[in-house]
């Protein structure tokens, strides 16, 4: 199958790619078929249980006896005992719980903090630690019954870090001087254990002033990076932004602020938040995108309110015939353009929801615009609009067909939207490259084009081959026969 090249041909001409070929493809497939057949025929005379001698596997796939299998099994048996009903009841209440979140890491300490957003559960750890200065960090965790008390007041920083690393209970409160605290941090950093580093950082964050903390971390890059990661995880946005400001890392500051919008569900509030992002020190490119993001959401809110109203009123034919599947809020720009080409195609440029207005506001390139409009209009089977999309008039008033995306792609999109053969045929004919045209015509069964092209190419063999593909006794067959018998054509083969 030839790739359709069209106007991007220049990218391809020089390509001497080594393709991943299944050159003996039929052979390959038949090999698979063969082994399949053999397997199936074997079943005929060995008709005992399939899994007999393989490891026993339940249909879910867990080998019988595996842990995940046994959880279902042992949990299951208890349902049938006398406590079954209560069991079921409590199980039902479980089902309202969302499954546990996928971990980003089993290891990183900082990932332990992700849990704080469990709705309505507990205040975040950082709040707990910073808002209640009286509460000491992990000093005397409730003694487990079996553990004896080996608490000592004079662990050195390195002993303390070593103990923390082993998960032992240890008070950090004794380290009062800045020097002691920094030594503690350095010990932790030299162990490379993120768990301990973060533990010490939390202690420092609570007991040092912001200015001193930032100043000291600026010259301790490893600890600094751990703090940044930690603040991101627990979502202490305020301190994080302060830190970036202090370090003069302006782009990170901007991105980090922008990131917050992901957590805002309410569209109005999200829009207002995005407004605060405009003018932050992004790169020039990003600044434009952020501005567009804001403008787009602003538009969507207007369009959404308007269209929801129209739809509910039930007076507009368009919405009655094609009810909206989802709200347009927070959809990407191209999706919004599609929506607008679908529901608001004919609107004047002055309205916010008109495609032309969107195109101008967001400087959508021609190609992108035509692709999207084509897809939307084809979906509605508005062939007249499709036609208009590609018709240009020159100054003499002659019309001409032009497609910035290449007619081969127009054909593909029309086909995807199940355009009738007559329409397809029209656009296949406009494809310039003969090979591409022939391929498309064959693929989409535009018989006339295939036949005429073969005739023009004087390719008798290909025409003969095509004859076997059309229906017996059809008009196409007759046409082919007439051409084949014509004495006027000098066949090249």
């Amino acid at each position, binding site marked *: *199958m030839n790739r359709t090249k069209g106007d991007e041909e220049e*990218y391809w001409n*020089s*390509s*001497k*790619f080594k393709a*991943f070929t299944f050159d003996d493809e039929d052979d390959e497939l038949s090999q698979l078929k*063969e082994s399949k057949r*053999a397997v199936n025929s074997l079943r005929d005379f*060995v*008709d005992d249980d399939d899994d007999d*001698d393989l490891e026993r*596997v339940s*249909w*879910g*796939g867990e*080998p019988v*006896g*595996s*842990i*995940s299998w*046994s*959880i279902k099994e042992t*949990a299951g048996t208890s349902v049938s005992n006398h*406590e079954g009903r*209560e*069991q079921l009841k*409590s*199980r039902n*209440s479980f089902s309202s719980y969302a*499954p*546990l979140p996928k971990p*980003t890491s089993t290891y*990183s300490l*900082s*990932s332990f903090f992700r*849990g704080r957003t469990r709705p309505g559960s*507990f205040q975040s*750890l950082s709040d707990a630690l910073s808002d209640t200065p009286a509460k000491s960090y992990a000093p005397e*965790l409730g*003694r*487990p019954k079996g553990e004896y008390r080996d608490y000592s007041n004079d662990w050195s920083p390195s002993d303390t870090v070593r103990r923390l690393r082993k*998960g032992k*209970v240890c008070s950090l409160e004794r380290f009062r001087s800045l020097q002691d605290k920094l030594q503690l941090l350095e010990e932790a950093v030299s162990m490379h254990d*993120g*768990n301990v580093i973060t*533990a010490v950082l939390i202690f420092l964050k609570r007991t040092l002033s912001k200015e001193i903390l930032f100043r000291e971390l600026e010259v301790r890059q490893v600890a600094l990076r751990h703090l940044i990661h930690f603040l*991101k*995880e627990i979502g202490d946005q305020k301190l994080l932004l302060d830190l970036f400001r202090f370090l003069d890392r302006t782009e990170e500051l901007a991105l980090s602020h922008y990131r917050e919008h*992901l957590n805002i569900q309410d569209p109005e509030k999200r829009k207002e938040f995005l407004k605060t992002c405009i003018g932050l020190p992004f790169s020039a*490119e990003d600044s434009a*995108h*952020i501005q567009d*993001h804001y403008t787009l959401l602003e538009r969507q809110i207007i369009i959404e309110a308007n269209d929801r109203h129209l739809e509910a009123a039930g007076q507009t034919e368009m919405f009655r015939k094609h009810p909206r599947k989802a709200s347009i809020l927070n959809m*990407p*720009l*191209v999706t919004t353009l599609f929506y607008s080409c679908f529901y608001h195609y004919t609107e004047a440029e002055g309205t916010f929801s008109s495609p032309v207005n969107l195109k101008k506001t*967001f400087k*959508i390139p021609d190609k992108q615009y035509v692709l999207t409009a084509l897809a939307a209009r084809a979906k509605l089977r508005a062939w007249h609009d499709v036609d208009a999309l590609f018709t240009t008039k020159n100054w003499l008033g002659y019309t001409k067909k032009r497609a910035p995306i290449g007619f081969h*792609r127009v054909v593909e999109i029309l086909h995807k939207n199940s355009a009738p053969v007559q329409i397809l045929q029209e656009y296949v004919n406009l494809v310039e490259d003969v090979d591409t045209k022939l391929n498309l015509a064959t693929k989409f069964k535009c018989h006339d084009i295939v036949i005429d092209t073969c005739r023009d190419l004087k390719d008798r063999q290909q025409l003969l081959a095509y004859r076997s593909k059309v229906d017996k006794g059809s008009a196409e067959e007759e046409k082919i026969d007439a051409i084949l018998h014509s004495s006027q054509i000098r066949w090249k083969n």
Partner: protein
Amino acid sequence: MAAHLSYGRVNLNVLREAVRRELREFLDKCAGSKAIVWDEYLTGPFGLIAQYSLLKEHEVEKMFTLKGSRLPAADVKNIIFFVRPRLELMDIIAENVLSEDRRGPARDFHILFVPRRSLLCEQRLKDLGVLGSFIHREEYSLDLIPFDGDLLSMESEGAFKECYLESDQTSLYHAAKGLMTLQALYGTIPQIFGKGECARQVANMMIRMKREFTGSQNSIFPVFDNLLLLDRNVDLLTPLATQLTYEGLIDEIYGIQNSYVKLPPEKFAPKKQGDGGKDLPTEAKKLQLNSAEELYAEIRDKNFNAVGSVLSKKAKVISAAFEERHNAKTVGEIKQFVSQLPHMQAARGSLANHTSIAELIKDVTTSEDFFDKLTVEQEFMSGIDTDKVNSYVEECIAQKHPLIKVLRLVCLQSVCNSGLKQKVLDYYKREILQTYGYEHILTLHNLEKAGLLKPQLGGRNNYPTIRKTLRLWMDDVNEQNPTDISYVYSGYAPLSVRLAQLLSRPGWRSIEEVLRILPGPHFEERQPLPTGLQKKRQPGENRITLIFFLGGVTFAEIAALRFLSQLEDGGTEYVIATTKLMNGASWIESLMEKPF
């Protein structure tokens, strides 16, 4: 049993036994009958080291998954929580414990943190008022989990992001700890090689940890000759390309998790006479994939184009074996035939499964889009037109193909061009943001920070030098009977594996120039051995290299290393360790920014 772990040169069952022993010891600390409440994520990795039977031997009578509100009823003395140290899990545990106390007889609670105990989690339990309820709070350091006879993984999904984006070294610390455990079991590794910033740090940590343990001299005869530590960011290219080995394609298309794969059930419906087609299963078919299965061990690392012929040969052999029954005349012969039946039936089941899987994969690999995508990948990797906007990528965006696919291709192009021209990069960025949403600005920044998608600096493209020196692109690749590692990507030889290959012969001194282009330092360290433990290699005996991929490894790279191990005159056999088994899609996904 896990016999397949002992098939290789290094018996990884020793490691498995060691972690099993540790588990048993913990269970025995909690005397009496027990129920285990599982953090669901852990059941996958735990399944690789223990079956339910082991737990049952130690009086584990019930097992549940960790969920909110109250625990299911269980008439046991001990309730043990097996959890990762994550705060949100602590909240659930507290809920369980608090609602438990109101009912009847008091029971003993315990927590086993995997892979480590966390003071912060305990602080959380204390805040919730339940810390005192736990008798044992311990950690179970399951750092490296044996997956196969030559494969170990930490299964730490966020490792790459943490190391290269956040510069959080915690997973490196765990890697070093895992390596110390390995050395405790398999002897000190006399030579350490490495390339990359993280590799350097892991080596430093190991050396420091060794100093701390000077008291106890390791008296085990060393099994490994070398350790090679490799940063993933030394080779960002390989995982982006589509893997073309059998196992690699299964992973690309269906995703292999903890050596299990879930497949669409239709192809696996039992076709027996009598129940013609009714009751088609709707639940995904789950299969375990490891070298314990003879047929899988044979085909997993082959180029997919070479799998069909093996399957068909196998089919003939098995058919012939079953035909043998006609020739069995005497009682003795029949008895012999019958004794072989179990093995033959297992082989037939295995063949049936892999024939079905191969058909599923074939449906994908023969599609036009797969072909187009591969064509573009191979153009990029062989250095063709990497500095222009690619029309296939453009088309993928226009047709709104999955974002991960688009990002993977754009990153591949960027890596194969030492960064994209600013104009090209800006164009791709704008197209992506307009089509998939502006919020992906954050993801694009992450990719840039990781070095995957960036502007070309100084207008210099180093990739051709690297490609030529390391012979990354091979024009004459033999997929059926490979002679070079490039068969795993049908032409592209994975950079990471090439580095390993060149290290073993003729040594890295021959490629100093390229090593300087690749990021991070390269180094060599020696760990002196007492004279009694120094190895005298027999002539013809292969060296064993432990290669550790920091930030993840793909199945295709593993296949390439196995290929090198099996070379007759290769001289080196590899055992592979990693922070995570991954592919391009799971990798990119781990770098995408989501709401927190």
